[in-house]
């Protein structure tokens, strides 16, 4: 049994969950669409994009990045539940590679997030968002968004394995909000007080959101600074850095189940 094959079998388990209980992922999607509508139409009229441009065009890539960040929750929850219920122990007592469990999670969550992105793309187009860049750039934007999700996966796996409890899950559920809002996902950093804007600009989420805006050909709301010049580079560097930190931490947390 190769680790890859075992990982794929564990991924299939999660995909089978969708078929059995489709309401979980459907509510997740509806939540994303609701946020989109709330910000796009309820608050959007009062929001100006620095440097000009339509707010819906500005918002869509930000919402996509935000939903990639929120993915950390579902990863941590699923991982923690399996560890607590003994399912992880059952896998660990089987003759499969030790990376299989994490790989299974990666496969399932990346599939889930890809579907979520596609729904937001279609939903965005339906409310008037447009891709004005070329197709290759747009595809690159999608890849960068998925790269952010990939790095969130390792943070989620680490938290799930390390803390294994309802408490950690609740903490993640609460913390993603300030982390999500303290970025350029929904409003431009340039409309914030200077010090707050600086923090928001350095949020990894802002890098991905700004890069996706550039690549989709949407207004970025950034008129100067590092983010304006190197958004794509930062959108690659941040997730890679997070992965380099949290993938080994996840592996260590998995090994420490043996302690």
């Amino acid at each position, binding site marked *: *049994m190769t680790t890859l094959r075992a990982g794929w079998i564990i991924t299939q*388990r999660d995909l089978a*969950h969708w078929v*059995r209980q489709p309401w979980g992922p459907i509510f997740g999607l509806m939540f994303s669409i609701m946020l989109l509508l709330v910000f796009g139409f309820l608050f959007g009229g009062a929001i100006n994009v620095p440097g000009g441009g339509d707010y819906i065009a500005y918002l869509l890539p930000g919402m996509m990045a935000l939903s990639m960040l929120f993915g950390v929750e579902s990863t941590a929850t699923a991982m923690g539940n399996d560890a607590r219920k003994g399912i992880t*122990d*059952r896998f660990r007592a089987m*003759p499969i590679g030790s990376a299989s469990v994490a790989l299974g999670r990666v496969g399932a969550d990346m599939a889930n997030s890809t579907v979520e992105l596609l729904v937001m793309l279609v939903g965005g187009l339906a409310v008037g968002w447009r891709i004005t860049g070329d197709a290759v750039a747009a595809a690159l934007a999608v890849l960068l968004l998925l790269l952010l999700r990939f790095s969130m996966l390792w943070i989620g796996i680490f938290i799930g394995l390390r803390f294994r409890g309802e408490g950690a899950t609740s903490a993640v559920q609460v913390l993603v909000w300030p982390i999500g809002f303290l970025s350029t996902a929904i409003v431009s950093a340039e409309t914030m007080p200077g010090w707050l804007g600086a923090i928001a600009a350095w949020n990894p989420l802002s890098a991905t959101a700004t890069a996706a805006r550039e690549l989709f050909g949407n207004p970025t709301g950034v008129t100067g600074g590092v983010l304006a010049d190197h958004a794509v580079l930062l959108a690659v560097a941040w997730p890679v850095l997070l992965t380099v930190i949290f993938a080994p931490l996840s592996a260590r947390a998995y090994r420490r*189940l*043996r302690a």
Partner: protein
Amino acid sequence: MDTLLAEGLRKRYGDLDALDGFDLHVPAGVIHGLLGPNGAGKTTAVKALTTLIDLDSGVARVAGFDVRTQAGQVRASIGLVGQNPAVDEILGGRQNLVMFGRLYGLSKAAARARADELLDVFGLTGAAERAVSTYSGGMRRRLDIAAGLVLTPAVLFLDEPTTGLDPRARNEVWTSIRETAARGTTVLLTTQYLDEADQLASEISVMNHGRVIAEGSPEALKRKIGGDRVTVTLHGPLDEAARALGGTVDEETRTITVEVTEGLAAIVRTLDALDASIEDLQLRRPTLDEVFLTLTEKEPVT
């Protein structure tokens, strides 16, 4: 050669010696009971033998393989049924078994065939497609055990498989365990219940504070810890009867509790001779508390 062998296992968690010189020898094909109270180290012993935790010291071999250096081979030879049913609640019973079968390296078709076989053996065919969350406690446990048997393992580890089950479900699980052993799988069963070990195991190791404090067949252990207890409710000379029987009196309920040493008939004859009329008589096994009291009293204080 022993199918399960543990010598001098030690595992320390902070200040607690979860395993403190744990020894175990189990020959092939038997059900071996590991009996002990909460916190005795039963689960730690199972985790050590199933390669889930690292040992501080000691040697453990399962089906001939060293748990430290041959973990992969050990894992390919065992089934583990942990304290909580570790099956996917959203999936159906059949889906669970097929998934575990495929993880053990069976092809899709072989995994399906094996799943159907196990569902049949464990009486779950009718519920095969239903989500496990709709199963009763007993059904869930049986599926859990079935999942541990996908591979037809050399050794099956069952960690308190009937804790929290009602008597009927417990009987179902007992039957499954007996059938498993009858098909040649060696079973290590941990339990807090003396009667469960008595019912199922051919040999019992009694565990406390991380090590085995007594070992033997249920009969031998019961001889060691004293026989069954009988509680009689009397009309008549309570104190006199208690003296004659060598038992303890409860004035309020008018009962005498006596250890049965020479059979019930002898007790009844003694009471008859005293002209005491028996209102109620209950025979019971020594409780685990009594077993531990007896055994730990005999153990030198360290």
